[in-house]
């Protein structure tokens, strides 16, 4: 049996707005993926260690409180430090256009802002995740 795509959905830092992340988690489950949901107030260290222990194909980071540059940057640094390759990182939430470019430069593959459909996120993952 082919392994379903395994995704980690997490919120980093002091941001309690979890509805969007939870909706995405449930949507990806409905799209046939195994979604590890680690909830709110994760540190970047915890997110990266969880991604390693769960051996996920992708990490979805959510931020609605403006902390995305600091938190996401740290996650990307840690992934690099741990030499993790082949794990796709995507993000969502309230992220200004000006920051989208910077985040993509860090290696975050796509940013899904308000109004993005679940179907588009699922489609994106199915197309871009390197299956193991």
């Amino acid at each position, binding site marked *: 049996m082919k392994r379903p795509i395994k995704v980690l959905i997490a919120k980093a830092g002091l941001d309690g707005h979890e509805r969007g992340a939870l909706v995405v988690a449930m949507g990806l489950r409905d799209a*046939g993926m195994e*979604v590890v949901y*680690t909830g709110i107030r994760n540190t970047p260290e915890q997110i990266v260690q969880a991604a390693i222990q769960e051996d996920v194909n992708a990490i979805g980071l959510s931020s609605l409180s403006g902390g995305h540059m600091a938190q996401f940057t740290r996650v990307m640094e840690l992934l690099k430090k741990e030499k993790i390759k082949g794990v796709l990182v995507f993000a969502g939430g309230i992220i200004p256009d000006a920051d989208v470019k910077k985040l993509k430069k860090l290696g975050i593959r796509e940013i899904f802002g308000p109004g993005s459909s679940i179907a588009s996120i699922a489609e994106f993952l199915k197309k871009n995740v390197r299956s193991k």
Partner: protein
Amino acid sequence: MSMTRRELTKLVTRLEAGVPLSPELYARTGNARILGITGPPGVGKSSLIDRLIDELRRQGKTVGVIVIDPTSPISGGALLGDRLRMQRHSDDDGVFIRSLATRHHHGGLTDATPQIIHALDAAGFDIVIVETVGTGQDEVEVAEVADTVVVVLMPELGDEIQRAKSGLMEIADVLVINKSDLMNAGAARQETRRPKQGQRWERPTLRTSAKTGDGITTLCHVADAHHAHLAASGQLAGRRERAARAEVIRLLQSRMTASILCALGASRPQTILSAVAKRKLDPYDAAQKLWVEILGSKNRSHKYVATNSR
């Protein structure tokens, strides 16, 4: 730790995909204590494990954790939400947590759980905790893999008849009433009887609160006492033998099922199956015919299944 995090996590992924553990690694297992945590959905199993990890880490023990949530019968996906209750332990070097989806396995665990327990054991963890899916009354497979089974319930879950029923309640070595912070002050007093050396294990009932942390230390002590009791009374070896037997039987069953399903694809079995649907043949006779044909002449003398034969 005899293997790195990255090696262990990749190994678990392979085991989950059905690749067997190497004989060399299997030879290194048998040292970890296996603690099973089971009970209905929402009683606080994951939150209790979060507290247990605290306590075990304070004692300097390393902990491997396997947490299981159900696969959707509709989409084949799963929302694995146990880890979030214990996520604060993620960046602790002495803890390794892995979430598994049932992938349509029934019984409370997943196909690969016994193998993944071996992997964590071989990796050198002192304690391996296995959290089942939220169970009903009949998912008792965890008793086949764990040294100690903790059944977690919460207040107001049912009367004494519910407690007297077969299944889940019978496999408990320790019964825990979690969320005891919700109980009335006048509720049943905590039983913490402990068996004396050589006596039969009398299953204790403990009250805990994963929310406040009450009762967690006692739970740890009682789990230790149960393990010591198993070791001292010689029952540990018996349990381990039962576990090994159950694991091999399960592997045989899945091979058998696969070969039966494969054989059923041929045209003759298909004719027999449609005869059943058309009420030309009854299911038992069809199974008997197929049993003899699929398994060949060697098995002709065997009745298909003793309890099913008329």
